[in-house]
């Protein structure tokens, strides 16, 4: 009898041991940028959008190159030039077991543009669209004007549960109370700056993740993140610092994945003030803003050695840029190449523009937002100083920088004269940077929202607006290319390079790089 009991006990124990590893697999992640909230409508920011994509779905998903895929909508079509119909997926369950219907979609689009205290919201995607319910699994979207990018806009808004989130605040999402989605992972807990825990959604409508649990550790410092991976404290990290990439690639215990991003790093130049605050004559006195002269802007572009920045600062982990988006995206012109390094040509242009001896300039940039941002600003300062434009560098944390760069001046105007910034095309095509960076600043219409140089050209504006309302793809692409070519021809901005994103994992894990820089835990596979 005693023996029987012991055998039985051992069998049960064995069975339990056997069962544990099969179902329970944990992925530990070292994440560079912690999101600012779990509320998917609070802050339109890459780290937030990336994380909430694991908990919440959108009607339309984007693949690794940002092409549109069916999500909570199985199909969509334009009924006429201003009406779109979306068929919703049936049988989808919320994390709390309730059924997903059209009411949740309508509720989400109502809440998205209107979250209290949102630092940057989602109104840009919902503006001008009216949603109506046809039946429980069909909705229609009416736009004010023909708007061919409606599906791209729709793909940016996360769908939340009406039952769980009615009246919920951002804090309710952060605590988990309202964080009920339909995505591949359920939210478990978030201890800010310590850990964020997700658990597999066993009822997910799509391919289930192989990870039963994901523990995300925010590790802001690049070297510390790499050290955590090397020490085996985490299995997977994003944003590998460029100095460490070569070494991690050679490490047989690790695997590295790398791919171009849709983010261009570029310079905005003050083109709206006659007396620009950070442009001074060589003797320190005032000078008529030379950045308004296209020849001076071209001289600055020619003075910048993009290949040197890519090779020496970025350690070859970047692509020299000649326009707003890298090759392969919709609306990219094949006529534009990166401006060649030509310091003599730059000096000649400065002479032609009446500033042969150059002037004094300050470049402002963030020091914790883009890959090697402060070092890029310093390299550019070297290069401009060499053609006679004495350039000082001022870098600051992003929390201070973006506010000042966008509206730190008098009357909410941009404060700086030369700013280093980046732009990732969320919609995955050229209208996104054209609309936000190149179009004349017009707050009421949401145009030129991030146009910190205030470049303004009626001809380019007309092209962009026409493109945004052209339904025919080929025609729209031609318009976008034309607008891009004219904008770069005018040096509305000076593109520097496109970022390349790098992830690293312990051997045996793989992750396909995404152009939107997002880390999606359901797409981390073990092989």
């Amino acid at each position, binding site marked *: 009898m005693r023996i029987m009991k012991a055998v039985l006990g051992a069998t049960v124990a064995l069975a339990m041991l056997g069962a544990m590893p099969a179902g329970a697999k944990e992925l530990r992640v070292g994440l560079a940028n912690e999101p600012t909230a779990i509320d998917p409508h609070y802050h339109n920011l890459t780290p937030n959008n990336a994380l909430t994509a694991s908990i919440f779905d959108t009607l339309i998903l984007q693949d690794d190159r940002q092409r549109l895929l069916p999500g909570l909508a199985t199909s969509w079509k334009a009924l006429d030039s201003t009406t779109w119909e979306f068929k919703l997926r049936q049988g989808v369950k919320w994390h709390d077991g309730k059924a997903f219907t059209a009411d949740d979609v309508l509720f989400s689009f109502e809440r998205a543009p209107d979250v209290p205290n949102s630092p940057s919201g989602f109104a840009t995607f919902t503006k001008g669209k009216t949603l109506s319910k046809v039946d429980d699994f069909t909705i229609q979207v009416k736009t004010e004007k023909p708007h061919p990018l409606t599906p791209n806009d729709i793909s940016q808004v996360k769908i939340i549960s009406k039952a769980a989130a009615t009246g919920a605040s951002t804090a309710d999402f952060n605590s988990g109370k309202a964080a009920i989605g339909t995505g591949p992972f359920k939210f478990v807990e978030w201890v800010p700056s310590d850990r964020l825990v997700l658990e597999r959604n066993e009822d997910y409508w799509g391919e289930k993740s192989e990870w039963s649990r994901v523990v995300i550790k925010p590790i802001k410092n690049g070297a510390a993140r790499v050290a955590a991976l090397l020490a085996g404290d985490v299995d997977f990290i994003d944003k590998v610092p460029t100095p460490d990439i*070569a070494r991690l690639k050679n490490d047989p215990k690790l695997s590295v994945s790398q791919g171009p991003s849709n983010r261009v790093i570029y310079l905005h130049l003050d083109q709206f003030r006659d007396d620009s605050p950070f442009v001074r004559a060589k003797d320190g006195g005032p000078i008529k803003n030379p950045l308004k002269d296209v020849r001076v802007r071209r001289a600055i572009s020619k003075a910048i*050695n993009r290949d040197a920045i890519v090779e020496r600062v970025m350690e070859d982990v970047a692509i020299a840029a000649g326009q707003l988006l890298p090759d392969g995206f919709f609306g990219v012109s094949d006529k534009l190449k990166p401006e060649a390094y030509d310091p003599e040509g730059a000096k000649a242009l400065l002479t032609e523009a009446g500033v042969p001896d150059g002037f004094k300039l300050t470049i402002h940039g963030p*020091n914790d937002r883009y890959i090697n941002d402060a070092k890029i600003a310093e*390299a550019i300062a070297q*290069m401009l*100083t060499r053609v006679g434009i004495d350039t000082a560098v001022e870098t600051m944390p992003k929390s201070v920088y973006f506010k000042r760069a966008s509206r730190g001046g008098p009357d909410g105007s941009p404060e700086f004269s030369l700013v280093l910034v980046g732009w990732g095309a969320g919609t995955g095509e050229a209208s996104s940077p054209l609309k936000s960076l190149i179009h004349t600043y017009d707050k009421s219409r949401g145009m030129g929202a991030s146009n910190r140089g205030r470049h303004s050209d009626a001809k380019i504006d007309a092209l962009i607006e026409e493109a945004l309302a052209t339904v025919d793809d080929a025609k729209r692409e031609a318009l976008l290319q034309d607008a891009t070519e004219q904008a770069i021809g005018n040096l509305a901005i000076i593109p520097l390079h496109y970022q390349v994103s790098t992830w690293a994992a312990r051997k045996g894990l793989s992750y396909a790089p995404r152009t939107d820089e997002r880390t999606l835990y359901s797409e981390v596979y073990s092989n």
Partner: protein
Amino acid sequence: MTALADHGADHGAEQGVGQADSPLRRFLADFFESRVATVAFAALLGIVFIALFAPWISPTNPYDLATVDILDNRLPPGSEGFTGMTFWLGTDGAGRDILSAIFYGLRTSLSVGVMSGLIAMVMGSSIGLVAAYFGGRTDTLIMRIVDVQLSFPAILVALVLLALLGKGVDKIIVALVAVQWAYYARTVRASALVERRKEYVEAATCLALDHRRILFRHVLPNCLPPLIVVVTVQTAHAISLEATLSFLGIGLPVTEPSLGLLIANGFEYMLSQKYWISIFPGVALLITIVTINLVGDQLRDVLNPRLQR
């Protein structure tokens, strides 16, 4: 016999007079009695020399953006750059010669340390003297302010001040003075309290000399020994605090790195075996602070009457 005795007495008298007449010489003899202190003092002189003459002895000017070339960046020690010049300690991530950057960095670090130390000393010791001399409410008020100031960690106070003031050498000095004056005030008050009760102060008061004269001509000189020790210790402290602030990226502009910023810049290259960007400036900072502290220690031993052998 008498002649001999006279001679001996004369000799002794001469020696005695010599010693009594030259406290400085005795002080120097005591100071250089320790070999460690002698070496430290020599090293400190060397560092001060480098800091003073950095623009003339540096191979390049690391703050001149027109001569620093990004194409020369991250070269290991001893390699040759594009222009054919040799970088003996290698180059950093922006292409600066590390050796020149250390020379200029020492200049920045030392001048910030000494400047803030001197200003804090003048401010702090005046306040301390006033507190000790007048006593009563003045003393209580000043010393409570000092207590409050000392109860905050120095780095926290400096961080808050710099966040409010912004970047720049002058602002760093302001922050460091704000952090340090309380130490001087406390030290000077303590020794001034002792001196105040001595007869010579009473005598001076009876002569109806004014307060300022008594404080600065009579009391202060007698408080000097501890003050000198605190100056050296606090200068070393100020230098390391400045390095810490620069390391955190809130000190000086990126194009004019001090030692702390050089170390911070090299920190991210440590895992990729480019050790020289961090290590050499780190060693320079270490040597500077250790020598100042060693000199300070020896000063304390020599100037402390209780340790007099």
